[in-house]
């Protein structure tokens, strides 16, 4: 019986365009730039092709989830900290911007950056004691943070209690709102890709793969982890701040588990560790869940089942699969 195996070989154009030779011909140039341009142009024209206000609002929500998913992917697959606390970041950023906007009267273009930076600092400080934890323990502790904050706000009746804070300024118009979040997502996406390829990114991956080796090289793991958590939580807080200004309301629902679960689902479906994958996953998952809205809670059932299916049968995700098909071809060879 003749045995055969499938081998994967890099496409010639990939090999040629890896180095400086990329500038040799339009073909190689477009091989590199077209996928990126498709994403950027696609994101930028999305608000125009959406029918009606409702779907334009959905685009903003997609971008906020994409921010969270990016922060999850960055923390989990480049630093090795699996954080299930997306809602914690969203809630911190949301409440901070609400306080600055209503109590101090800061306009959105001031309150959002302040909430982002301050929120990042607060989240990092609160998570600082848990940074030495690993794996499941860090995951569970971050899952508990949003729950406990929501319960404390409810129990002590501070910050508007169960009613939340109302009367927050919105954006001047919906074009500003959409292009702000879209631009933020694109900037952060490409910024993070750049960051993980810098020396700093190398250290982050070192922390993930072998923290003792990083420590033996005379670098403090805790400092690097704290820096990574600051970057990720600031992204989440930015998302929360934008969300609050879009809805003109903040409340306990900012700490809902949705914000912790959906970004993870998007990361799993889109492709973990690719940074583009989570954005893609959000672009697929959030509109699907909006389409299913009329089915009520059945949509949660749907996307849980999709999630289980992906995790069990195709855990690499769409983006990794797509990249492989784009860069390599496969053929059967004799063993």
């Amino acid at each position, binding site marked *: 019986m003749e045995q055969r195996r499938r081998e994967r070989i890099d496409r010639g154009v990939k090999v040629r365009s890896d180095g400086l030779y990329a500038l040799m011909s339009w073909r190689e140039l477009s091989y590199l730039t077209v996928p990126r341009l498709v994403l950027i142009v696609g994101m930028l024209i999305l608000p125009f092709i959406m029918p009606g206000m409702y779907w334009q609002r959905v685009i903003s929500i997609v971008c906020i989830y994409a921010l969270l998913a990016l922060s999850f992917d960055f923390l989990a697959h480049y630093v090795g900290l699996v954080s299930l606390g997306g809602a914690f970041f969203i809630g911190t950023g949301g409440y901070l911007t609400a306080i600055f906007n209503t109590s101090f009267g800061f306009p959105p273009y001031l309150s959002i950056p302040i909430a982002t930076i301050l929120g990042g600092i607060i989240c990092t400080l609160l998570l600082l*004691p848990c940074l030495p934890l690993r*794996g499941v323990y860090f995951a569970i502790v971050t899952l*508990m*943070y949003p729950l406990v904050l929501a319960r404390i706000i409810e129990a002590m009746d501070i910050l508007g209690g169960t009613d939340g804070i109302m009367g927050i300024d919105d954006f001047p118009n919906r074009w500003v709102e959409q292009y702000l979040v879209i631009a933020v997502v694109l900037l952060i996406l490409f910024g993070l890709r750049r960051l993980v390829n810098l020396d700093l990114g190398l250290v982050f991956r070192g922390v993930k793969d072998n923290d003792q080796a990083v420590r033996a090289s005379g670098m403090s793991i805790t400092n690097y982890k704290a820096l990574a958590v600051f970057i990720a939580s600031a992204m989440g807080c930015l998302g929360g701040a934008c969300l609050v200004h879009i809805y003109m309301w903040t409340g306990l629902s900012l700490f809902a588990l949705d914000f912790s679960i959906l970004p993870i689902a998007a990361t799993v479906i889109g492709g973990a560790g690719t940074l583009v994958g989570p954005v893609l996953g959000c672009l697929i998952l959030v509109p699907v869940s909006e389409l299913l809205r009329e089915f009520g809670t*059945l949509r*949660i*059932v749907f996307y849980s089942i999709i*999630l*289980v299916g992906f*995790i069990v049968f195709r855990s690499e995700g769409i983006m990794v699969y797509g990249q492989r098909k784009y860069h390599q071809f496969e053929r059967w060879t004799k063993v």
Partner: protein
Amino acid sequence: MEILIYGIINSIALVLMSLGFALVYGISRVPNFAHGALYVITAFITWSLLNTLGLNYFLSIVLSLIAIGVIGALIYQFVLIRVRGMAISEIIASYAIGLAILEGLRWGGFKGLSYRLPVFIEGSVNIGDVPVDYHRLLTVVVGIALVAFIWGFTHYTKLGLALRGIAQDERAAMMLGIDSDRMALVAMAGGAMLAGLGAILLLPLGNIVVESGYNVLTMAIAVCIIGGLGSWMGAVLAAFIIGFAQILSVVYLGSHYQMVVALLAIILTLILKPSGLFGRQKELEERV
């Protein structure tokens, strides 16, 4: 006196809620985040058997416990077995299953206050000067009996010893011919049945609502983490600690703080001593 009695009752209730989670994690190292869903669905199965099919109460309890055991085994056999060992995939997969079950129940119309299970024995008795109804006393008795039964089962039967073998050292146990996946399957089925038993004992005291699934999951995680993941006796002791802490906070602070206490306890335990009060995890596996 009131604090003492209701503290004990509350603690036993926590034991019943979390024993299944502790059992599954202790044996197969799978954090079963579908625990809360299994808890709630048992109550709904019992309710449906009792009211829709009109079976006798005892029979419907037995049938629903068997059903939940089969459901737990199926979840393990078809989903969790494929992601075993990958901690995050385990959490996401089991949580997604739990979410699907709970939200499916909500969609299926099981919401509102109309779903109640009857209590086993009506009436109440005064202990000292505190009135306690018989059902709560029965819960305490069954809870203690259950803990004793599990202790005996894992120390004196072949299956129980095999389960403990897998929990202690999976490789050595496999060399002795114990099928690790089979034992994990048994543990999952048993854990699901324990969750179901907890639901049947505890839910007649209130309404069957979908939200209790999330609360039970949180409490089970709290108890298991404080007691040390994988340590059953630790879980029982932790249930008493949290149980009394909750009753004290309800009496002196107000009922809103009940959940805050549990959650803060989790966070503090994880930060200070992640292996819990009685856990025996290796230091290096959990923190740098």
